[in-house]
């Protein structure tokens, strides 16, 4: 029944990018000067670390917030847990995992600094377990922190909370942000770069790259080389990214997970819905997706609200599974925006 199977099984196609080392683009680094340059790393106090994060303007790539605000506001209290988000459950994408695998000592230094600020009871690094199509073994420990394998089906983010003890609060911080924190502490370096996976069946040598924030997608694709003209270029994750038309003026931000160049694009051709009910089966939030799509196309926003379209997290599992190639997720997200618009105007 749809209550027990949550989400869908995706082949991750992570292989060439994950095991290759991260290519760093030639760039000059910016430094900041703080008023306590000489104190050794292990005597840095909590406030000083937050000051470092603020000066280095580190942005957490898992949710786009500033790291120092998250550290300041998150009072874990006793029994809190710190989770390092290295869950890359979208196919092709492995930017967060590559940080954990290729630079473990820097990552563990960053985690240690965060521990000093938040003093959580438990910390672990979360990684997505189902990378079956590659003979890559997920390490048991990175530095001295255990790696907890988040199992289950895509989307895995919503299931992280299930591993936490009830009633205790927790903080999720991205692995790349930890790395930048470690660099800020060691060389007081600003966060000018971000980690992006360049992948796709058209890229000559797909790999993870560290590029300065703001470089255009075209330059990054040239860095990795293209075997032939792609029909579609995607900025962001393979399940939640968006297709772009002009790669030369689309820039990369800290929260962009990857750039994917595909030889053949699906376009927007789709058959008629035959009501097979697979999208209902695949929805992680157990929403009645099939009827909601019908309401969205008939323009019945009140019925959509009744069917809880606001709980849709836009994971794209329903469109992935739909045999008629209908963009169910896109319709629902568009309807969700219309409802918010209508609510603002007070029509609803």
């Amino acid at each position: 029944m749809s209550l027990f199977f949550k989400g869908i099984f995706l082949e991750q196609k992570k292989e060439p990018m994950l095991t290759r080392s991260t290519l760093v683009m030639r760039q000059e680094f910016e430094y900041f000067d703080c008023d306590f340059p000489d104190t050794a790393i292990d005597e840095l106090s909590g406030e000083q670390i937050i000051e470092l994060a603020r000066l280095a303007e580190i942005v957490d790539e898992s949710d786009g917030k500033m790291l120092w605000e998250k550290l300041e506001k998150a009072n874990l209290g006793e029994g809190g847990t710190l989770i390092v988000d290295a869950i890359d459950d979208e196919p092709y994408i492995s930017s967060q995992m590559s940080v954990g695998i290729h630079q473990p000592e820097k990552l563990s230094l960053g985690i240690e600094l965060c521990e000093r600020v938040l003093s959580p009871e438990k910390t672990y690094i979360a990684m997505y377990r189902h990378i079956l199509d590659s003979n890559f073994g997920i390490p048991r420990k990175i530095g001295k922190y255990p790696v907890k394998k988040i199992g289950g089906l895509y989307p895995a983010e919503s299931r992280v909370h299930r591993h936490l003890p009830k009633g205790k609060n927790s903080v999720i911080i991205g692995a790349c942000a930890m790395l930048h924190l470690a660099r800020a502490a060691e060389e007081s370096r600003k966060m000018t770069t971000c980690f992006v996976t360049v992948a796709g069946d058209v890229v000559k040598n797909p790999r993870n790259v560290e590029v300065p924030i703001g470089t255009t997608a075209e330059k990054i694709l040239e860095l990795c080389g293209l075997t032939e003209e792609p029909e579609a270029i995607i900025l962001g994750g393979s399940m939640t990214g968006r297709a772009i038309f002009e790669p030369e003026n689309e820039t990369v931000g800290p929260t962009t997970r990857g750039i994917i160049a595909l030889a053949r694009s699906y376009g927007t051709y789709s058959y008629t819905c035959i009501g097979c009910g697979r999208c209902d089966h695949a929805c992680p939030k157990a929403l009645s997706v099939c009827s909601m799509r019908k309401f969205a196309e008939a323009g019945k926003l009140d019925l959509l609200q009744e069917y809880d379209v606001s709980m849709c997290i836009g994971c794209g599992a329903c469109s992935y599974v739909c045999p008629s190639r209908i963009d169910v997720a896109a319709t629902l997200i568009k309807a969700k925006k219309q409802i918010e618009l209508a609510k603002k105007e007070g029509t609803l």
Partner: protein
Amino acid sequence: MKEKLMFQNAPHVRQSESVVTMMTDVIFALLPIYFMAFFYHGARSLVLGLVGIISCSVLSLLGSFFLREKPVPDLTPIITGLIIPLLLPADIPYYTVVSACAVAIFVVKVPFGGTGSNLFNPAAVGFASVAICWPELVFRYPVTMQAVEVFGKSTVKIAQSPAYSLSLGAVPDYNILDMLLGTAPGPMGATNILVVVACGIFLIVKKAVNWITPVSFLLPYSALCMIFPRISVSPLESLCYELFSGAIIFGAFFMLTEPVTSPKRDFGKLMAGISAAVVVFLFRYYGGFEMGFASALILMNVFSPIFDAICESVLHVIRHKESISDSLKAEMKRKKEEKEKPVVRPVKKVEETEAPGIPEETEVPEEPVEIDLSEEKEEEKEAAQL
């Protein structure tokens, strides 16, 4: 690089399986049944299948031309065209198959809007309309193991199907093995139970059809047949007789699981399966019709949205578990306070209910049907003044 870039929506990775692969799986599952029909009844069964496919696809092309949409390459009419002849006897004249396909496409599919939006199962309606129109042709079956002539009058001996003798309450004179292997007379595709079950399981394994509806239909139905046997035989034997006669298993795997008209959610499919079992059981015991399965199926298609609505309300409660439990607690607290201090009951406002029946102000009852004729209203008004 720029001119070739195309737009595509959010999930840029799609499942390899598409509607076409699903439909081809169903067609491949139907072919062995045709082979068995050919084995028992000769080449005429294949020609009947061919006639079914050709008439269904030609009519659906005509229909899509009539619906003024470009004909989409989908295979659903071919599946309907394959299923209908399997429910009919092998020596049925060709015009009945063509008329069944015409009803299935032109009455069930085209007026409701093409493949995705038909509210009833086209194969069931097509077969029911033929069975009602020519009962003497549809309900007498040629004896197996004799080739029926492809053209002209068939000279094969006619025999009653076990379902008919069951409806009279007599024990059919074919043992269970005969019915399993399909040597008992009956509809062309529905008698060789082993092959039908094998194809059904093939479909379920290939995920072209969900496993919940057939299982949740066959189990309660066999339970009911064991509890209320029609013939004075051991319950297990009566179960076998009931289950293997009258296209029950063929219908459970191929007609009941038609995706468009069955409920969408798995829990809804379970409810549909169980209520279909009860309705088919009642139709076969008390219905005036020997082949009650098709009309019971049409009735079940009416209730599939109701099952979906029930599922949605159950899930709505589950989704809002926390907020509902909080509001309940708040409710209890408020009631406790009310009990302590008595409150003057406010006067109940007379709520006016909208008068049933015809709204007064329309000069001519222009919209007899509640379906909104919104874009036609003005044209209707000026037609009224015409």
